[in-house]
């Protein structure tokens, strides 16, 4: 029971609790807050795996921009509480244990197949950001340029969609 394992379990518990809270909360703003918790916990997990740049980008872009967009839209649309859904109790009583059992089966199957993917040795990358940048701008330059074009198209689309009516 070493320190990384304890940190992993704490962060994983935060992720799962946040995801379950996303499902069980009735007001969308509380679901949004739970999703932010999930994202910050995932950033912690990325840091645990040594992917520091990805962790920072996750918080800056996902947590600081995309979720802010969600929160703005919930505030602007004045979203209220959800009405009670009327799905059957039987589905709850029978479905949840079955889902847990299925997940346990999959988890056991993945855990048994350890010979295919070993737990990694320490990634000896002293400057992972530099190596990542090299990879991004040399091997992956074509997808990089395509994604920047995609963002441009998305910006245009968002402006056209949300522009007030009656204006050219």
């Amino acid at each position, binding site marked *: 029971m070493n320190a990384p394992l304890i940190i992993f379990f704490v962060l994983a518990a935060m992720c799962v609790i946040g995801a379950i809270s996303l499902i069980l909360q009735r007001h969308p*703003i509380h679901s949004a807050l739970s999703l932010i918790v999930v994202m910050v916990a995932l*950033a912690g997990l990325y840091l645990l795996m040594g992917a*520091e740049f990805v962790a*920072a980008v996750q*918080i800056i872009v996902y947590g*600081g921009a995309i979720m802010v967009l969600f929160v*703005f839209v919930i505030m602007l649309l004045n979203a209220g509480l959800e009405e009670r859904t009327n799905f059957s109790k039987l589905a709850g009583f029978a479905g949840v244990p079955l889902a847990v059992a299925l997940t346990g089966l999959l988890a056991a199957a993945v855990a048994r197949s350890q010979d295919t993917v070993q737990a990694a040795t320490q990634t000896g990358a002293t400057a992972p950001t530099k190596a990542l940048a090299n990879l991004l701008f040399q091997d992956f330059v074509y997808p990089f340029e395509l994604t920047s074009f995609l963002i441009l198209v998305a910006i245009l689309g968002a402006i056209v969609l949300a522009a007030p009516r009656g204006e050219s």
Partner: protein
Amino acid sequence: MIDFLTQQAAAHAEILITLAKIIILLFVVLTVNAYLTWFERKVVAHIQSRWGPHRVGPHGLLQPLADGLKFLFKEDPTPAGVDKFVYYLAPLLALALALTSIAVIPFGPNPLHFKGHDIYLGITDLNIGVLALFAITALGVYGVALAGWSSNSKYPLLGGLRSSAQMVSYELALTMSVVGVLLMAGSFSLREIIDGQATAHGLFGWGGIFRWNIFAGPFPQILGFLCFFIAAVAETNRVPFDLPEAESELVAGFHTEYASFKFAMFFIAEYTSMITVSCLCSILFFGGWLSPFPASWTFTHYLPSVLLIPFGLWVIWDGMRYETIFGKLILPGVGAVITALGAAFLLFPAVNEFIQGPFWLLSKIFVFLFVYVWMRGTLPRFRYDQLMSFGWKLLLPVSLANVVLTASALLWSNR
């Protein structure tokens, strides 16, 4: 029992040292916050030809204490119809994030040596220091937006939405304006950025102040600094960008419905982010703990003592002829402490060498805080549409141009 404790302390020394650093830094930052409010009120008052706080304690120095007590004892009403969880979460989030950003800032180059452990000044030095600060700034938008929305009232909602839209817009310019510095330093780590400035190619080959990023070749980061400072002032919702919380416009913006201690939390968060921005400006653009004089001018190492001893003597003299008895007792004591500190730096060269770095960094932080307060006393505020068009149409293109020019200059000088 004592043996067991000392043995455990030796085994877990690193964590205990970090914990001690966190507690000390927290106290220091909160005290600096409190006296920053005093400083702001005094300076703004003198700009407006009046005195500011001068009754509570000598020269009003105990005013922050009185304010703190007021915040603690004031009634704390919760409006009806608020979303309780979010209403209590928002100031907590703002305060926690603002205080966390102090953790990555380095305060001095040389470590203290204590019982075989090297204690560096500054809680940690992340490989991605600058990115971590941006991540914390990005999350800071939530404190404002959620506060505005959860208050269940028109003015806070409008103020919160405006304020968070403003923060998100200026975040882009903030991030872009730092990219020039990152290109020149080649790293995200704040210590490495300062170390890069120590050996940079100074303007015209001169040393000292001309090696700082704002003056250094191949491309002086003057544009970058201006963009960063303006965007940072907008991020922290300070004048001239404080329309969302201006009293004459929106009652008090997003923190209208917050009273006493919760308002104090927003207040502390705002001043702490001011301090963080000042630290960042000094570190990224103005050389951090580097002295403006070239390293060969070793006589400048006596500057802290040369400044502190006359200041301490003046405080003693002023205290002796102060009007109240309390002032006549306290001020000479404070002055004596300051004079003793200055004399200690003169007498112990090792201590003098050690505090050179922190002295210069703290002086630069003080200058930037003074500029912040100076702007508050002098400038009128922007209208909201002027503010947004300024951020998107002027600041962002200028910071992008800075990135392109810096990159081109670096490529050309390395060809």
